[in-house]
C-alpha cells in the first residue's frame, strides 16, 4: 500500500514511545508514490497479527487457549468506572448498527454526548444508495462513486460497499425501518445527482431520521446494550504494547452530573461523526465538533484525507436577512439547486452576475464549481454572502415550488418573490477521517471506526450523494466479526483500570467562579475566531499562502487560549465540555490545514490556486501520523501520560 505523506506535510513522522521499531511499519512513510494505493493490504495486515507475547500483562492478556474468554457482566467496581465487552462512541447509524450486532456476543455500552438521536444521521434526510433495481449494477454504482471521488477512492473499498449495500438495506427493513414503496410493491428508488441509475432508497423526506428511529428503538429494547446519553468522550485510553498502540476504552464526562466516568472495554468502536463546526456556517448539528477524529489522532491513530471537506454552495445567509434571527441558527438552511435550475441567478453584492465568468454553464454548472465560484467572489470582494435571485420568475410558481424558502425568508423580513436571497456556502461532510481498513480496523489495536469519522477509501476526493449512510451501514457491519474475535481473545484485568490518571472536572471549587466564567467566555470567543480563520483561509478555494497563514493564525490562537487556561489554574488533566470541544476543534482544524498543505494538486473538493490541475502522480491518499509528544499542544496530546513500564512487562 502506498501510504504516502506528500512532501510538504512533514507533520511528524516520529511516533511516540515504542510503537515503531525498525521495520515494524514497512508500509508507512516514503514508499513509491506511483504505486497503486490499496487500503486493505500492507499496514493493516499488521493489525490482524496476534499481539506479541510481551503484551501488557498488567492490563490485558491474550489467552492462546481455545476456550474463549468469558464475556464481561456489566459490573462496576465503582460507579465511576464501568466495564463492557464493547464500547461504542456515537449514536448515529454506524454506532447503533454495530451495537445491535455485537450485543449478540457480549455487553455493549453506547456513549453519546447529547440525546441519542442527535447526530448527523438524523439530519441526513435524502436517502441511502444501493443497487436494488434489476437494471442497475454494482459496477455502475462503483463507477459513479469513483467518478464522483475524482478517482481517489480505493477500488476494493468501493467494490465492497456497493456489493454489500443491498443486503444492509434489507436488514434495515427487517429491523423495522420503513421505506417508501411503489404501487408495484417494490421499493421506490429515486435518482440523485451523480447516479446513473435510480438507486436511492428513502423514507419520504426523512430517511436518516427513519433509520435512526428504527435502530434506536431496537437498541433501547436490547438488554445487552446500555446507552449513556450526555456522556462526552474525553480521550481514548491506550497503552503501548511493544510494537503497537492498544485501546482499552475511553474516559467520558457525564455532562449532567459533571462527573468523569471511565469505560474499560475489550473493543472500542469510534462512530462519532463529523466536524462541521470548525467552520462558521455548517449543516451539522452542534454535536459535530470532530471529537472522534481528534481523540483518535491523540491516541496515535492515523488520519487521512482531511483536506476533502464538502460544502453546499447556497445556505441561507443570516447576515443578509433584514430581520436577523435572534439566536444563531444551529443548522444551515440549504437552498436547493432547483432554484438555480428554475432560473435563479447569482449576484455578488455589487449586483454583478459572476457565474458566467467561471463557467459556461453559469448557474447550472456543477455544484462544486458554483461553490468555488461563490467562495472566490467572497474572498476577492471581502464580503459575507452573495445573492440568489429568483424574483424575476412568476410569483405563483415561486411560491408553489419553494414555499419552505419563502416562509423562512418571510419570517425574517424578506420576500423572495421581490428580493434576492442572501446565500453563503456551508460545510456539510468530512470525506476524510480516521484511516480504516476493510474491516473498520485502525492502526490502534482494539479501536475500530465506522461512519463519517472514518476514512475508508469509499469517498475519495468527493462524496457521492447518499453514499454516506451506506458507508456507515456497511462498515459498522464489517467491523463486527473482527471485533468479536478480538473480544473473545481478550481478558481484562480490572485492577489495571486506575493506571491512567483520571481527568479532573473543572469546577468553581477547583478554579474559582470568576476564572470559570472568564474561561467560558474566552473559549466561546476563540471558537468563533477559529471558525472565521478556517472560513477565510481554509475555505473552498485554497492556496499555499492562505493555508500557511491559517496554520500560523491557528497556532497563535491556540497558544493564546491554552496560555490563558493554564495561567489561571488549568492543568493537563482538567476537563470541561466547552474546553474539550475547543481542543477537538483545534485538533481537527490543524488536521485539515496540514492535509490541505500536503496535496499539491487540485482534486475533487480540494482546490488550490497554485496547483489548479489534477496530477496523476498525486492520486494517493494524504496521511497524517501522530504528533510528537514533545511538540504537541494540549489539543494534540492525550491528557494522561502512561508510563509504558507500568503496563508492559517487555
Amino acid at each position: 500500500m502506498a501510504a504516502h505523506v506528500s512532501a510538504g506535510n512533514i507533520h511528524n513522522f516520529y511516533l511516540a514511545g515504542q510503537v515503531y521499531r525498525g521495520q515494524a511499519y514497512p508500509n508507512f512513510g516514503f514508499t513509491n508514490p506511483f504505486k497503486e494505493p490499496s487500503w486493505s493490504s500492507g499496514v493493516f495486515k499488521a493489525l490482524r497479527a496476534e499481539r506479541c507475547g510481551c503484551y501488557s500483562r498488567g492490563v490485558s492478556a491474550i489467552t492462546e487457549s481455545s476456550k474463549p474468554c468469558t464475556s464481561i457482566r456489566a459490573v462496576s467496581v465503582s460507579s465511576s468506572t464501568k466495564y463492557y465487552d464493547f464500547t461504542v462512541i456515537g449514536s448515529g447509524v454506524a454506532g447503533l448498527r454495530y451495537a445491535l450486532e455485537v450485543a449478540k456476543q457480549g455487553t455493549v455500552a453506547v456513549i453519546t454526548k447529547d440525546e441519542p438521536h442527535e447526530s448527523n444521521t438524523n439530519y441526513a434526510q435524502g436517502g441511502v444508495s444501493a443497487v436494488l433495481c434489476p437494471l442497475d449494477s454494482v459496477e455502475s454504482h462503483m463507477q459513479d462513486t469513483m467518478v464522483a471521488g475524482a478517482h481517489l477512492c480505493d477500488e476494493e473499498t468501493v467494490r465492497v460497499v456497493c456489493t454489500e449495500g443491498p443486503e444492509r438495506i434489507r436488514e434495515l427493513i427487517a429491523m423495522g425501518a420503513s421505506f417508501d414503496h411503489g404501487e408495484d410493491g417494490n421499493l421506490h428508488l429515486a435518482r440523485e445527482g451523480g447516479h446513473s441509475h435510480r438507486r436511492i432508497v428513502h423514507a419520504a423526506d426523512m430517511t436518516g431520521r427513519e433509520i435512526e428511529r428504527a435502530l434506536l428503538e431496537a437498541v433501547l429494547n436490547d438488554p445487552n446494550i446500555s446507552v449513556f446519553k450526555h456522556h462526552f468522550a474525553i480521550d481514548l485510553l491506550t497503552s503501548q504494547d511493544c510494537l503497537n498502540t492498544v485501546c482499552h476504552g475511553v474516559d467520558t464526562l457525564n455532562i449532567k452530573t459533571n462527573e468523569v466516568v471511565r469505560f474499560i472495554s475489550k473493543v472500542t468502536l469510534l462512530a462519532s461523526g463529523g466536524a462541521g463546526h470548525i467552520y462558521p456556517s455548517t449543516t451539522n448539528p452542534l454535536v459535530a465538533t470532530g471529537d472522534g477524529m481528534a481523540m483518535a489522532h491523540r491516541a496515535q491513530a492515523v488520519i487521512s484525507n482531511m483536506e476533502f471537506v464538502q460544502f453546499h454552495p447556497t445556505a441561507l445567509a443570516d447576515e443578509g436577512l433584514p430581520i436577523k434571527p435572534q439566536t444563531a441558527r444551529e443548522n444551515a438552511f440549504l437552498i436547493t439547486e432547483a432554484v438555480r435550475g428554475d432560473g435563479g441567478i447569482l449576484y455578488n453584492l455589487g449586483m454583478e452576475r459572476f457565474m458566467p465568468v467561471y463557467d459556461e454553464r453559469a448557474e447550472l454548472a456543477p455544484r462544486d464549481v458554483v461553490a468555488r465560484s461563490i467562495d472566490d467572489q467572497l474572498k476577492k470582494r471581502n464580503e459575507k454572502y452573495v445573492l440568489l435571485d429568483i424574483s424575476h420568475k412568476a410569483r405563483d410558481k415561486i411560491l408553489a415550488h419553494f414555499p419552505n424558502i419563502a416562509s423562512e425568508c418571510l419570517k425574517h423580513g424578506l420576500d423572495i418573490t421581490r428580493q434576492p436571497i442572501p446565500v453563503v456556502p456551508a460545510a456539510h461532510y468530512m470525506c476524510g477521517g480516521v484511516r480504516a481498513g476493510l474491516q473498520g480496523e485502525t492502526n490502534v489495536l482494539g479501536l475500530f471506526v465506522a461512519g463519517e469519522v472514518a476514512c475508508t477509501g469509499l469517498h475519495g476526493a468527493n462524496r457521492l450523494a447518499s453514499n454516506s449512510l451506506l458507508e456507515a451501514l456497511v462498515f459498522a457491519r464489517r467491523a463486527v466479526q473482527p471485533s468479536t474475535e478480538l473480544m473473545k481473545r481478550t481478558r481484562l484485568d480490572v485492577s489495571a483500570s486506575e493506571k491512567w490518571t483520571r481527568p479532573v472536572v473543572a469546577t468553581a471549587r477547583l478554579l474559582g467562579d470568576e476564572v470559570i466564567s472568564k474561561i467560558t467566555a474566552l473559549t466561546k470567543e476563540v471558537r468563533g475566531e477559529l471558525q472565521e480563520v478556517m472560513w477565510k483561509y481554509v475555505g473552498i478555494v485554497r492556496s499555499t499562502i492562505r493555508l500557511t497563514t491559517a496554520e500560523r493564525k491557528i497556532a497563535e490562537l491556540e497558544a493564546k487560549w491554552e496560555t490563558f487556561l493554564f495561567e489561571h489554574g488549568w492543568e493537563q488533566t482538567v476537563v470541561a465540555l466547552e474546553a474539550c470541544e475547543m481542543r477537538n476543534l483545534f485538533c481537527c482544524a490543524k488536521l485539515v490545514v496540514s492535509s490541505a498543505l500536503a496535496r499539491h494538486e487540485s482534486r475533487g473538493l480540494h482546490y488550490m490556486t497554485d496547483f489548479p490541475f489534477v496530477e496523476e502522480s498525486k492520486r494517493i491518499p494524504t496521511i497524517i501520523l501522530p504528533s510528537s509528544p514533545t511538540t504537541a499542544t494540549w489539543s494534540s496530546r492525550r491528557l494522561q501520560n502512561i508510563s509504558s513500564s507500568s503496563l508492559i512487562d517487555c
Partner: protein
Amino acid sequence: MATNSIVRLIAPSRSASSRFLEPVSRFLSSGTPPPPQAPSPNQDLNRNVKPDQNLQQNLQMQKEEEEEEEGEGGGGGEFVNEDTGEIGGPRGPEPTRYGDWEQRGRCSDF
C-alpha cells in the same frame, strides 16, 4: 487497468468549459460573447420591505390546501404519486429533479 482508462477519458483538460481561473477583466476584454442578458436585478435589497400580507396569506392558503388533499387521499389516506406510483412519498415535483434532494425549496441531501 480499467480505472486508468476511465481517468484518461474524463481527466479535465485545461481548456475545459470551466474557466475557473479566468479573472473578470480578461473575460470582459476577450472576444467571447457576453452572457445571456440577465433580467435586471432587483434593487430593493436595502429598502425596508414590510412583509407582504398577501404573500403570507398565499403561503397559508397553500399549506391548508395541501393538508386537505392529504385528508382526501384514497384508501388509507396516503399520497400516491400518479406519475411514479410511489406511495407515501413527497408531493409536488420530483425532489431530485435537479440532482439534490429538496423539500419545498429546502435542500436536505446532496
